[in-house]
């Protein structure tokens, strides 16, 4: 079995009586897209929070590149190579698209303690930011204020900011949400290529995208992984059909 880039081992998390994560163990292999699907309230957001460090599991551990990161803060996991995009865009809305991308590059460089030079005129930061914007197709919007972008464009910018860090693993929380079919299609193609650079843990509602992209799928219901397998295995899994797809289709 290949080395896992990112994995959770038996993590549990409760909020009062609600058991949002029950012994979840999932892994992300190099080069793959591993999708996590499940009905609303299944605990996907809680799972992502624990992987990225905004929530601490009650028990179990999170490992990144073989290292136990359970006790590390979000920013420390980011520095180790975890790239994340948010379900609800969390960008600096008053800033321009380029400024947001430069922020990502600045985080990758790790040294914000410069008080005099113009950040946008720093060659290294700017090149990194611009090439990330170009990859997601936002190069023509570099000077646009982020608040003026469409929802879909904000998703693209989220991905671009994550790209500036050249992460070792991506965690993407519903990157397709709010995108038109054209946008989803382009992003699908882009993620398809991206997996060879770094594997992607993809939480997504858009089933067309999930079935088109995923190498493996885990199904989360009531805080529990009820099945993990290839697209075909999941499609034919009786428990999944009953618990999830049956209701949805």
């Amino acid at each position, binding site marked *: 079995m290949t080395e896992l880039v990112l994995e959770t081992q038996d993590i549990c998390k409760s909020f009062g009586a609600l058991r949002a994560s029950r012994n979840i163990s999932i892994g992300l292999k190099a080069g793959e897209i591993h999708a996590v699907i499940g009905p609303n309230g299944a605990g996907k957001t809680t799972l992502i929070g624990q992987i990225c460090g905004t929530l601490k599991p009650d028990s179990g551990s999170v490992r990144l590149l073989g290292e136990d990161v359970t006790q590390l803060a979000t*920013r*420390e996991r980011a520095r180790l190579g975890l790239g994340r995009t948010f379900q609800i865009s969390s960008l600096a*809305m008053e*800033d321009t698209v380029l400024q947001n991308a430069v922020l990502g590059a600045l985080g*990758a460089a790790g040294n914000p303690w410069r*008080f005099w030079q113009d950040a946008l005129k720093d060659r290294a930061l700017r090149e990194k930011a611009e090439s990330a914007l170009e990859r997601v197709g936002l190069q023509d919007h570099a000077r646009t204020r982020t608040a003026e972008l469409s929802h879909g464009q904000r998703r693209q910018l989220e991905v671009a900011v*994550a790209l500036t*860090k050249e992460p070792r693993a991506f965690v993407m929380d519903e990157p397709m949400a709010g995108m038109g079919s054209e946008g989803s299609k382009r992003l699908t193609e882009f993620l398809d290529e991206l997996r060879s650079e770094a594997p992607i843990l993809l939480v997504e509602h858009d089933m067309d995208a999930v079935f088109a992209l995923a190498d493996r799928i885990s199904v989360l219901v009531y805080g529990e992984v009820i099945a993990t397998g290839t697209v075909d295995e999941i499609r034919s899994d009786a428990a999944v059909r009953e618990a999830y797809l049956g209701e949805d289709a």
Partner: protein
Amino acid sequence: MIRETYLNTLTLGLFVLIPAWALMADEPFTITLMTRAAIFAIAAIGLNIALGIGGLVSLGHAVFFGIGGYAMGILAYHAQTYTPVAEWPFLIDGTKSMPIIWLVAVIVSSLAAFVIGSLSLRTTGVYFIMITLAFGQMFFFFTISWAEYGGEDGLSIYLRNGFPGLNTLAPIQFYGLCLVILCLVLLFTWRLSKSPFGLALNAARQAPIRVETVGLDPTRLKLIAFVISGAITGLAGALFADLNRFVSPTMFSWQTSGEIMIFLILGGVGRLYGPVIGALAYVALEHWLGGLSDYWHIYLGILLLLIVLFGRGGLIGLASGRKVAHD
């Protein structure tokens, strides 16, 4: 944008033209008023770095203003009484030299900002406001009980401190000094707002989780911003003490914190020139309204209320028709 630039240029122009006129018309009081405005502007620029860029609603900036003031008061008091400030662990003498006083003011207020900031930034939101306000009050009561330096009555300094090559007793020369410092502080703040640090701090205000996710620590960014902010306001406090040749616990009071914030709000939060225009407007209001009525704070209160309820963006926002700062 263009109108805002005109307005900024006009404001700086006023800081040159009004004193020039006052000098020719032999109106030293007007020069004193302009000095006051320039010093208030520096204090508010300090707050603008924490509040405008970093989003830290500090109601305790009087602490730094007061520390700057007492740095001047204590050093000059010992110099004029020929007593040492301290004999242990090594001999420290008082001084009448402005550059040394400024340096001490900046260092001590930075240290205070570091300690207060480290404690206050353990929390956010309303807690931060209440804690900074409380620490301000702590310094206020401490100086009142500090009998060695005048307690409640404060300290008077007989002669303004000196600056090499200048006669600081001449109002226009002292004003010139304050104006140069104002311009330098403006230049620094402008560079800072565009620098990598400024970019990250700006983002930490708008979306702290984003800053975390790119691998930076928003709390540390805010702490450093708070320290820089405190240092600049501390420098203003030292200048203010030298303008009045007097320091008292009032410099530490919650009203002083509120006033520094008002300078900023009147002009426009987060705008480079906001504090400058606000401080000038405040001194003008204080002079004119204060001449019309003993109760001019009522009018100030009403004006402030109107700005908050209807005109966020301050005077610059109203004049330029843009609510959001910078481009």
